[in-house]
């Protein structure tokens, strides 16, 4: 674990970029037909460098929000800013996907036909700004930092899914993004692998300060990783409750059994359960 | 269908784009075919075939001709016959191979050895063997569809999620029950796909067989759209060749679509996704 750093969020705000401001965002699918409202006047403020966990029941529209930030979908109304620059809003309802906001996908999107190393160098190689040698050097170093050496020349299909996730994160970080968008990346992993993944993610985070927008339905995961939890209502989604996680960083898994952790679980659980029941009764399909 | 949706579809950009390229295609064809008459220069390839306007004129004439529709009927009957035979024999054969390991290991290698031999290569052997020309065409048609259907059934049955079978077993289903209620419905989508492809192959084979046996003059069965085309060629009425080609295209498309919609009805669960 890296040396303890003073990770007071206030002093970070000025240095770290990547603040996201979501203002009154509404998303309606198929407006002339079925008119399904997925996001209902959602407003969230995420300071730069924060790990913001979005928690909510299945199908509530959290992925829609992520897709809007990433630029895969347009929004119906409202606006989203990244560091005071308009991502999408009036006049430009769909953001452009870009390397300042990189998504780590639910089922992984490492290119199976490229080796792990070739995947990691993909971003900078496409940008063409650095020389090939520089790119590969940086990639090998970052992979080693993340505990991935030895796997450089294997194909994604040959390694475990936990390892694949880590390679995908490194691939994203190669481009120095401002924001990492995680769409339930650890959903398919068993809980033993998950806890190892969590520590690995935090380790990587301490070395590379980025804003993290992390969607999950796993409360433990949310409290362990996040600075803040935003609990969403069932569809259409709207922030229902915000829980500040004041357990100091750097954290390790002993946090899971600390009394403060249990208290936070209590605080959050009631609301989450209530929304989950509503989603269940409405017969929502997971996103 | 909703009137608004229909109107939307007709006026949509996609629809008109398709129309545009087909129109351009027809224009190039028309101009190329008539070029020699207008300007004296024979356009290679296109210049030798009849222009679309002549083709449609000829078609107009044929619509009133009962023997034209007779050809349709004959071809359709042959396709139906061969196809149904292929389904009736092919589906059980495929399913049995899928469920019974021993039968699979015995029969499949022989099946795979025979499969690369193109169905049309069987035509002479078929003519020698079967007493009537109709039966020999039917046999070759059957072969064409048979291989495709069996492969698709096998593939579909093999990829059934084991857990469906295990769930049924843990609920106390008998072997027959499992077959009837799990294996059969789960394989149905593959059967539908296999039959749609098989239908296309059946048309190919029927047309080929009609041309070969009818045109080759081996005392074959007359009639059918394939024979119609060959006959038009031999008789020098080139417009009718193209009419025949388009007719078969329509007939083939129509039969595949019917199969697909029938298949859709049998597998309603695939529509919800």
């Amino acid at each position, binding site marked *: 674990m890296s040396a303890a750093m003073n990770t007071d969020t206030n002093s970070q705000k000025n240095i770290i970029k990547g603040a996201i401001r979501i203002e009154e965002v509404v998303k309606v699918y198929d407006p002339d037909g079925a008119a399904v409202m997925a996001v209902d006047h959602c407003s969230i403020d995420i300071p730069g460098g924060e790990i913001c966990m979005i928690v909510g029941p299945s199908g509530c529209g959290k992925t829609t929000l992520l897709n809007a930030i990433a630029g*895969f979908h347009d929004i119906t109304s409202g606006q989203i800013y990244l560091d005071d620059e308009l991502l999408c809003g009036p006049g430009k309802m769909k953001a452009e996907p870009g390397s300042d906001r990189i998504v780590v*996908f639910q089922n992984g999107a490492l290119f199976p036909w490229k080796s792990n190393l070739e995947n990691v160098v993909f*971003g900078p190689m496409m940008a063409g700004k650095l020389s090939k040698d520089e790119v590969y050097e940086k990639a090998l170093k970052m992979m080693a930092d993340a505990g991935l050496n030895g796997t450089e020349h294997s194909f994604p*299909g040959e390694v475990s899914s936990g390892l694949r996730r880590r390679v995908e994160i490194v691939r994203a970080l190669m481009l120095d993004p401002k924001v990492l968008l995680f769409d339930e990346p650890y959903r398919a992993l068993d809980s033993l692998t998950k806890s190892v993944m969590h520590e690995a993610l935090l380790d990587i985070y301490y070395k590379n300060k980025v804003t993290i927008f992390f969607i999950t339905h796993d409360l433990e995961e949310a409290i362990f990783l996040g600075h803040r939890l935003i609990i969403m209502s069932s569809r259409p989604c709207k922030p229902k409750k915000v829980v500040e996680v004041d357990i100091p960083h750097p954290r390790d898994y002993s946090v899971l059994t600390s009394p403060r952790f249990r208290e936070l679980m209590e605080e959050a659980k009631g609301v989450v359960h209530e929304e989950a029941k509503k989603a269940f009764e409405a017969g929502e399909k997971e996103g | 269908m909703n009137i608004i949706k229909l109107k939307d579809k007709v006026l949509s950009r996609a629809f008109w784009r398709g129309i545009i390229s087909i129109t351009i295609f027809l224009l190039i064809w028309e101009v190329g075919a008539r070029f020699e008459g207008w300007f004296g220069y024979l356009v290679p390839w296109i210049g030798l075939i009849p222009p679309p306007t002549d083709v449609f004129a000829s078609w107009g004439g044929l619509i009133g001709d009962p023997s034209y529709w007779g050809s349709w009927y004959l071809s359709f009957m042959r396709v139906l016959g061969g196809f149904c035979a292929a389904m009736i024999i092919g589906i059980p054969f495929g399913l049995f191979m899928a469920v019974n390991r021993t039968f699979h290991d015995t029969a499949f290698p*022989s099946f795979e050895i025979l499969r690369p031999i193109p169905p049309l290569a069987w035509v002479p052997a078929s003519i020698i063997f079967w007493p009537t020309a109709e039966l020999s065409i039917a046999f070759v048609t059957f072969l064409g569809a048979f291989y495709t259907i069996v492969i698709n059934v096998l593939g579909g049955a093999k990829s059934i999620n084991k857990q469906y079978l295990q769930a049924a077993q843990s609920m106390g289903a008998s072997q027959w029950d499992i077959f009837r209620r799990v294996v059969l419905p789960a394989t149905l989508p593959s059967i539908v796909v296999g039959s749609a492809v098989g239908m296309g192959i059946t048309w190919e084979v029927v047309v080929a067989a009609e041309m070969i046996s009818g045109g080759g003059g081996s005392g074959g069965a007359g009639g059918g759209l394939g024979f119609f085309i060959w006959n038009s060629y031999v008789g020098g009425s080139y417009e009718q060749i193209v009419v025949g080609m388009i007719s078969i295209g329509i007939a083939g498309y129509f039969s595949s679509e019917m199969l697909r919609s029938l298949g859709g009805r049998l597998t309603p669960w695939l529509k919800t996704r």
Partner: protein
Amino acid sequence: MNTTSLEASEMTGMALTMYRISNWLKSPKPYLMLIGVGFLLGIWYLFVEVWKLPRFEDMPGLTEVVIEYFSKDPIYGLSVFTPEYYTHIGISLRRIAYAFFLATALGVPLGLLLGWSKKFNEFIFPLFEVLRPIPILAWVPLAIIMFSGSETPVIFLTFLASFFATTLNTMLGVQSIDESYTRAARCLGANGWQTFRHVIVPGAMPYIFTGLQISIGVAWFSLVAGEMVSGQFGLGYVINTAYTMVTYPTIVIGMITLGVVGFVTSTMVRMAGDFMMQWRVRELALGDN
């Protein structure tokens, strides 16, 4: 030699292949296979030559064919020892090669474009779909009229069949690529052309190669038909001539040859695919992960 499955999972390459072969030989599979094939051959022999059943008696018999096939001086002119046999095979193969490679060179790019660009698809796909249902053989008279000589029409027909199959499968391949891959590429800053080159083309490869296997099968189908109707030399011609000249055993020789050659070319395509997609071979070998 008893190998535990733990050791087996750590074998690679040659050792793994030998292990798999030895396992296969120990199972009932090869013997059942022989029984199946033997059964077929047995019926052929019995029905035609021993019992001389009606309808079957005019067919060429198993022994007749085998003797003919392997005789140094065959009665009807074709056996493994006659050079004409190989000439015919060579000519059919040459036609297949022209048609198949041309169809691949045109069909793969067209299919990629049809899958990648919605606009292009809206223009061109309807035209494609109007022409595709017309059975390849229905083109025979038109091909004869359009192209001079006897080689070109045959190659054209074979090309057409391959072309439709290749283009369609390539297009479907592109459309089947998981959306996440293209999205990831865009997030990582790839532009349209880079995404096409690094994601679309490799991603569609498995489907393209499945399409190519279908394409070569269809090519043989059309070639045989074309050769039977209008051609000189070639295996389809051999079969047709053998029929009209009443030299029946040659029919069977032709059929067997077609089967073998068809199988070999199809395997070659599949092997080319495996070679180009090492990643997939390794992924499939490891099973579920």
